[in-house]
C-alpha cells in the first residue's frame, strides 16, 4: 500500500489526536515548575562514611529490619548492604542528603536479592534528586510501575540488576545526566526493558553508557524518548516487539533524541507479537491505532546525529534497521532526521551461532530519505531495502538534503497502521538457526 503524503498526514494527525485522548488545558507556563536541573550544587560528601546493614534472618542487633530503614538512616556517601533474601518493599532514595549512596545486594547473583512488588507496589527502587547513587545486585519483579527508576539526578550507576514483569519500565532513567546501566537484564516489561528519557541538552555533554545488558520479551527492548548522549553497546536485544527505538515525542521535553551511538550489539529475533498475548497487561497506548511496527530490530523515530554502527542485525520479520521522521511530533523543528549514520552493520547473519548461519531480515534497511546529512554505507549482507532501489541512501560522509521518497514513506508507515500486525511480515529464514540457550518468541503461550 502506498499512501500519498497528504493522506498519510491526515491519517497520522487523526491517529495522533486519538492517542492523546482528552487534551489537557494550556496553562500559564509559570504555574508549573520546570524540570529539575539534575546535578545540584551539593558536592561530594567528605565523610566519615558508614556501612549500614540490613538484617539477615534471625539477626536482630546492629542492623535494620528493612532496606528502607537502612536507607533512611544512611547519610550521603554511606553504603547499605542487603543480604540475600526477598524484600517486599518499594525503596525510595530522595534528595541531596542521599547523594553518593551505595545500595548493594548480591552482585554475582542478583536473583538472590529479590525486591518483590507483589503486583501492588509501584517501584522497586525509586531515586529522585540524589546524585551519584549506585545500585548493584538486585532483582526487582512484579512492580506496577518500574523495577529501578532514577530521575532528576546525575552520575548514577545501575549494575548487576534484573528487572522482570513490571508494569512499565524495567530500568528507567528520566531527566538524568551521565549515568551507566551495565551488566543487567530486563524481561517481560509492558513497555521497555530499558529506558532513558528526556535527557537535558548540555553545553558540555556528559555521556551515559548502556553496556552488556540483555533485554528480551518486552514490548520494546530499549526506548529512548528525547534521549541524548547515550552509548548502547555490547548488549543483546532479542525477542522483543522491537529491539531499540530512540524516539521523539511531545510528551517529554527536549525533543528530539540526538548524539546517540548504538554500536557492537546483537539485535535479533525482535518479532514478539504481544498483541496476540503477552505475560503482561497491554497498555492502551500499545493497542492504539498507531502501533509500534512489531518485527523491527532498530528504529530511529526522529533523531539527530545518531550513529548505528557495527551491530549484528538478523532474523526480523519486518525490518532490521530503519529510520523515519517523527510524524506525530508537533514540534516541527525536531521532526526531521538529521546527520544520522548507518555504517558497518552486518545483516542476515546469525552471529550467535558458531557457524554464523544465515538468518535473514525481511527488509534489511528502510529509510524514506527524509531530512538532511543522513548517510548509509559500509553495511554487509544487505539484500532487501526500502526503497528497493536505495535511491534515498547516500554514502557516508554526506551533507545536504537527502532524496526523499514518498513511496518509501508509505511503505514504512503501512505496518504501523495495519490491523494485522503481521500483515507485512516475511519470514525469509524459517525457522531461525538454533542458538543454544535461546528460543525464538513470536507468540506467547502461558
Amino acid at each position, binding site marked *: 500500500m502506498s499512501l500519498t503524503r497528504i493522506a498519510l498526514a491526515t491519517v497520522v494527525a487523526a491517529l495522533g489526536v486519538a492517542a*492523546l*485522548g*482528552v*487534551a*489537557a*488545558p494550556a*496553562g500559564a507556563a*509559570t*504555574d*508549573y*515548575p520546570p*524540570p*529539575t536541573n539534575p546535578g545540584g550544587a551539593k558536592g561530594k560528601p567528605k565523610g566519615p562514611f558508614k556501612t549500614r546493614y540490613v538484617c539477615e534472618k534471625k539477626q536482630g542487633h546492629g542492623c535494620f529490619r528493612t532496606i528502607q530503614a537502612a536507607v533512611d538512616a544512611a547519610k550521603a556517601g554511606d553504603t547499605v548492604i542487603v543480604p540475600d533474601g526477598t524484600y517486599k518493599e*518499594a525503596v*525510595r532514595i530522595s534528595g541531596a542528603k542521599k547523594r553518593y549512596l551505595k545500595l548493594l545486594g548480591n552482585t554475582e547473583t542478583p536473583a538472590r536479592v529479590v525486591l518483590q512488588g507483589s*503486583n*501492588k507496589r*509501584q*517501584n522497586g527502587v*525509586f531515586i529522585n534528586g540524589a546524585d551519584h547513587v549506585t545500585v548493584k545486585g538486585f532483582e526487582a519483579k512484579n512492580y*506496577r*510501575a*518500574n523495577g529501578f*527508576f532514577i*530521575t*532528576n539526578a546525575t552520575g548514577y550507576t545501575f549494575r548487576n540488576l534484573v528487572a522482570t514483569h513490571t*508494569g*512499565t*519500565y524495567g530500568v*528507567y532513567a*528520566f*531527566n538524568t545526566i551521565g549515568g551507566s546501566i551495565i551488566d543487567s537484564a530486563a524481561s517481560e516489561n*509492558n*513497555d521497555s526493558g530499558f529506558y532513558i528519557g*528526556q535527557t537535558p541538552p548540555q553545553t558540555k555533554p556528559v555521556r551515559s553508557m548502556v553496556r552488556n545488558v540483555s533485554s528480551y520479551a518486552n514490548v520494546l527492548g530499549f526506548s529512548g524518548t528525547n534521549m541524548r548522549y547515550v552509548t548502547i553497546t555490547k548488549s543483546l536485544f532479542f525477542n522483543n516487539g522491537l529491539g531499540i527505538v530512540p524516539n521523539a515525542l*511531545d*510528551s*517529554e*521535553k527536549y525533543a528530539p533524541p540526538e548524539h546517540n551511538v548504538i554500536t557492537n550489539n546483537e539485535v535479533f529475533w525482535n518479532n514478539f507479537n504481544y498483541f496476540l498475548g503477552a505475560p*503482561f*497487561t*497491554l*497498555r*492502551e*497506548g500499545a493497542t492504539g491505532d498507531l502501533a509500534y511496527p512489531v518485527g523491527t530490530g532498530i528504529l530511529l523515530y526522529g533523531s539527530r546525529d545518531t550513529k548505528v554502527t557495527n551491530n549484528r542485525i538478523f532474523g526480523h520479520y519486518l525490518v532490521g534497521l530503519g529510520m523515519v521522521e517523527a510524524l506525530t511530533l508537533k514540534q516541527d523543528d525536531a521532526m526531521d532526521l538529521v546527520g544520522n549514520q548507518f555504517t558497518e552493520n552486518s545483516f542476515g547473519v546469525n552471529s550467535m551461532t558458531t557457524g554464523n548461519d544465515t538468518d535473514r531480515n525481511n527488509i534489511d534497511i528502510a529509510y524514506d530519505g527524509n531530512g538532511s546529512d543522513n548517510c548509509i554505507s559500509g553495511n554487509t549482507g544487505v539484500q532487501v531495502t526500502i526503497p528497493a532501489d536505495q535511491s534515498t541512501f547516500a554514502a557516508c560522509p554526506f551533507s545536504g538534503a537527502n532524496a526523499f521518497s514518498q513511496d518509501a514513506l508509505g511503505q514504512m508507515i503501512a505496518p504501523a497502521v495495519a490491523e494485522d500486525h503481521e500483515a507485512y511480515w516475511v519470514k525469509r529464514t524459517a525457522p531461525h538457526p538454533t542458538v543454544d540457550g535461546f528460543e525464538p518468541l513470536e507468540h506467547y503461550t502461558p
Partner: protein
Amino acid sequence: VRRGLGVLVLTGVAAVAAAPAGAVRKPQRKVVTVNDNYYLPAKLTVNKGSTIVWRWPDDAGDVHDVKLGRHPKGAKGFWSEPGAAGYSFTRKLTVPGRYAIVCTLHEEMTMTITVRS
C-alpha cells in the same frame, strides 16, 4: 417525573445561590483519574477543606506523578510517588486559591484546582 426533578434541581440551585454570605460550604471528596497523558477532570472547583484523590487505573498505564506547582500562600507543597497502576494519592486542600498540578514526567499533563473560601 423528569420535569419534577428539574424543578427540584432548580430549586436547589436557587437555594445555594440564596445562601447567606458567610455560610460554611461542606468539604467535598473528589476523584481525579490519572490517565495517559491527562488528568480527568483537568479543572476542578471545590470547597475549602476538600479531599482530592488522584487515582491511577487498575490495569496498566504509563508512569505519572502528581506535583503541586504554583499554589496559594500558606498551602503546603506535595509530590506523589510515580505510579503506573493500582495506586492512589490523596491530599486535603485547606487554603483557598488556585492550585496548579503537573506530572513531572509529561510536562503537557497538567490540571488546576480552585479551592473556594
